């Protein structure tokens, strides 16, 4: 567990919670990222605020890299594993009505039985695949 980073995890998590809360307090909307991004593409109604949210998503890490000097992170190689993973994440979050943010934070935060079940499910398959493949 020498790679455990509890302080940055809690601070980062708190910021995620704050941003999620802000969208509910101001627009009255769930900050589910798969839902917002997919509807920004698929639906004309409400496209502008959804695109603004996506622009914010793109800016956050850039801001952090300005504030923190040696901020770097890895990215995946372009290979069949990465592409298949992207397709499965797209299909699964659409059919399952949400991802880590929508179910894992917004849904669990309001004690939704659907979101608790979905989160347990994607955690279970995520752990199984990452541990065995």
């Amino acid at each position, binding site marked *: 567990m020498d790679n*455990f980073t509890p302080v940055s995890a809690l601070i*980062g998590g708190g910021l*995620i919670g704050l*941003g999620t809360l802000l969208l*509910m307090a101001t627009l009255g909307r769930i900050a589910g*990222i798969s839902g917002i*991004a997919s509807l920004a593409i698929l639906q004309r109604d409400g496209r502008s605020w959804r695109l603004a949210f996506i622009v*914010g998503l793109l800016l956050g890490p850039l801001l952090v890299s300005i504030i923190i000097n040696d901020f770097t992170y890895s990215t995946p190689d372009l290979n069949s594993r990465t592409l298949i993973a992207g397709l499965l994440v797209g299909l699964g979050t659409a059919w399952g009505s949400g991802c880590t943010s929508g179910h894992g934070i917004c849904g669990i935060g*309001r004690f939704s039985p659907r979101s608790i079940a979905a989160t347990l499910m994607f955690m279970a398959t*995520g752990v199984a695949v990452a541990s065995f493949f």
Partner: protein
Amino acid sequence: MQLFFALLSGLLISAGIAISKMIDPLKVISFLDLSGNWDPSLALVMLGALVVYTLGFKLVLKRSAPLFSSHFKLPTKQTLDKPLLLGAAIFGVGWGLAGYCPGPAIAALPAASTGTLGFVLMMVLGWLVAAKIPLKL
């Protein structure tokens, strides 16, 4: 004001994803992979987010309406169904394969990595396909 607060919300969320290092798929995999050098950080990210959101959500809902919109829009469905569970299972498989869920993948796009771009394009393809073909069970 809607556009400003939507942008600010996205910015706070992805800054949190960056600071917690969840933008790094290897960091996420080190949580999901129980066979290696296990890193519990992701659990604390979820905990930190949930504490802030759960407590704040109660306060927010004491108002009759959000600040810059006419009403709160919350999901009403309560029952578990097969598309929810199977969809979540499929999502988890993709998450475990690459260490990316939608937020970190989109937030990492400015790094201009072909792998991240390929992942996001395939994710969008998945959304388009799923919109045309609902999961009927």
